[in-house]
C-alpha cells in the first residue's frame, strides 16, 4: 500500500544552515506517528515543507502517491492534508463559531459563495456545532477569539484543523505553552482523535509521546536520527544520549 504521505530526499537550507537534511520519511494510512527531537532540530521546518508553508530546496513530497512538491498550501488542504501551528495561528477578531463555520464551509466547497448565507449551510453549521461541543468551546462560541483563555485558543487551533475532515493531520506541539491544569484537556482531545485520521505528532512531552505513538521518528540537526517503535526508541542508547538523556521530560 502506498503511504499517505511520503518524502523523498527532502531538503531545505536557510543560508548556510541545513534545517532539513535529505529526509526520506513515510506515513502509513491511519498511523499514530510521533516526531521528536531537540529544540531547533528542524521539526517545524519539516511540517512547513510538508504543508507548503515553505518551499523545499530539494527533494519530493508525495501525498497519497501524487507529487505535491510544488502545490500551494490551500491545494494540499483540499487534498486532505491539515495541520496545527506551534504558535497559534487564529483569527483574533472572529468568534470560534464564525471561524469553525467558515472552515467547515470551505471544506464543503461552499466557502466562496457570494450570495448565500452561512447560517443556511446546514452541514457546515452542524460540523461547527459538533466541534464546539467536542472541544468544550460551546460556551465561548460568541466570544472574539482573542478574548479566549490561552488553553481554549489552543483547542480552537486543533478544532480548526479538523473542521474539514482531513485525512492527514500534522500536530505541531499541541500542548505547547498550555498551563498544567489545562493540559489534560488537550491530551484527551489528542487521544480521542478519530481513528481513520492519520496523525503525525510533534511533542516534547514524553509521556504524551509514548502513550500516543505507535511509531517514533527522532530528528537531530535536520536529519532522521532514529526511527522505530516506542520500545525500540526507548532502548536506543544514542537517542538517550542526544535527546532523552538531556531532560527530555520538559
Amino acid at each position, binding site marked *: 500500500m502506498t503511504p499517505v504521505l511520503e518524502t523523498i530526499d527532502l531538503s531545505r537550507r536557510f543560508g548556510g544552515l541545513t534545517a532539513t537534511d535529505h529526509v526520506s520519511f513515510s506515513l502509513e494510512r491511519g498511523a499514530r506517528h510521533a516526531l521528536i527531537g531537540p529544540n531547533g532540530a528542524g521539526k517545524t521546518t519539516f511540517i512547513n515543507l510538508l504543508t507548503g508553508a515553505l518551499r523545499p530546496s530539494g527533494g519530493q513530497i508525495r501525498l497519497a502517491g501524487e507529487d505535491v512538491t510544488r502545490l500551494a498550501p490551500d491545494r494540499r*488542504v483540499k487534498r486532505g492534508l*491539515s495541520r496545527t501551528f506551534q504558535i497559534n495561528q*487564529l*483569527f483574533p477578531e472572529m468568534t470560534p*463559531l464564525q471561524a469553525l463555520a467558515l472552515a467547515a464551509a470551505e471544506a464543503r466547497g461552499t466557502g466562496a459563495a457570494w*450570495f448565500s448565507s452561512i447560517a443556511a449551510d446546514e452541514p457546515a453549521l452542524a460540523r461547527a*456545532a459538533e466541534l464546539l461541543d467536542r472541544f468544550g468551546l460551546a460556551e465561548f462560541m460568541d466570544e472574539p477569539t482573542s478574548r479566549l483563555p490561552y488553553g481554549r485558543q489552543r483547542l480552537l487551533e486543533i478544532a480548526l484543523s479538523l473542521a474539514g475532515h482531513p485525512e492527514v493531520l500534522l500536530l505541531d506541539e499541541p500542548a505547547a505553552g498550555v498551563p498544567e491544569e489545562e493540559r489534560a484537556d488537550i491530551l484527551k482531545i489528542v487521544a480521542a482523535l478519530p481513528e481513520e485520521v492519520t496523525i503525525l505528532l510533534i511533542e516534547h512531552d514524553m509521556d504524551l509521546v509514548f502513550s500516543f505513538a505507535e511509531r517514533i521518528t527522532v530528528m537531530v540537526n535536520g536529519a532522521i536520527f532514529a526511527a522505530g517503535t516506542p520500545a525500540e526508541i526507548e532502548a536506543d542508547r544514542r537517542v538517550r544520549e542526544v535527546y532523552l538523556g538531556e531532560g527530555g521530560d520538559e
Partner: protein
Amino acid sequence: MSGEAKPSTLEAARASLMRSAALKPFEYLVWLPLPLLIFLFPSKAFLLNEIAILALFAVSLDLILGFAGIVSLGHAAFFGAGAYTAGILAANGFGAPLLGLAAGGAAAALLGFATSFFILRGSDLTRLMITLGLQLILLELANRFSGLTGGTDGLYGMTVDPIAGLFSFDLTGQTAWFYSLTVLFAAFLFARRLVHSPFGRSLKAVKGNRRRAAFLGIDTNRRLVAIYTVSAGLAGLAGVLLAQTTQFVSLDVLDFHRSAEVLLVLVIGGTGYLYGGIFGAVIFKLMQDWLSGMTPQYWQFWIGLLLVAIVLVGRERMTGGLGRLAAFLPGRPARRAAKAPAAGGEDAP
C-alpha cells in the same frame, strides 16, 4: 469524529449566525429618512448628491480596507476610470445614464481586476506605492491624451440624457440626488449581501490571518482578486455618478487628494462594517461645508488636524460613538476585540 452536536449548541450556533446577518432596526433608521432629506433641505440638493457619491466611494474602499485589509492610496484610480468612461461616452453622444453606469462600472472593475494581481505580494508599503503609482500613471495618461479627456481644461460638452428617458437632470439637483441615492442604495445592498456571504466572511479571515486562512483551504489570492475587482467596480460607479450629475469631468477625479480624502472619510465613520462609509461621508461633507465657509483656503489644515487627532486618540475610540450603535449593526462583534493579546501569533513572512 462523526459525533453529533447537542441540539442546543446547534440551535445557538444557527441563531448566532443568523443574528449577525439579519437586518437591524438601526438600518431602517439610516435608510428610511434619507430620501426625505431633500424636502427638508431643498437648497442643499447638490451637497446631498455629493454626500451620496462620496458615501458610495467610501463603501467601496471599505470592502478592500475594512474587510480584506488592503491599504490603498490610489483608490481614486477607479473613481476616475468610471468618471472618464461615462464622461467620454456622454460627450460623444452616448448620454444614457444607465449605459454610462454599466460601462463606467465595468471599465473600473476591469481595471481593478487587471491591477489586483499586483497587490497580492509584498508589504503594506509596496501596496501603497503600487496603488498610488497606478493612479498617478492614469493621471498622466489622462493629461497626455487631452484630445479624449480634455486634459487640464476638463471634459466639456457632456450631454446626459434623462434617466430611462423619463427624469431629466434639472437645475435644482433633485433628480441627481435621487439618482445617486438609488445607485448608492442598490450598491450598498449588494455589498451588504456580499460581506455576509461565506465569501465575505472568508475575506475577514484572510484579513485576520492570511496564512491560517490558506491552511483552511482558502485560495487567498483568488478571494483578494475578486473583492478588489468588486470594490473597483463600485468606486467606478461613484465616479460615473459624479460625472453624470455634474456633467463635467476634470483631472481632479484622479488626484491624490481624492484617494486621501476617501480614506479619511472611511476612517471617520469606521472601517469594517459598511455603514462607516455613509456616516463618514455625511460627517465629512457637513464639516467641509461648514469649515470651508469660514476659511475656504485652509480647510485642508482642519482635515489634517482631524486625521492626526483621530489617530492619536485611537481610531477605535474615536469612532466608538458610532461603534456603540454596533449592537444593532451587522457583523460588528469583531470590533470589540480590538487589541487583546494577539491570537494571530507570528506574521506569515
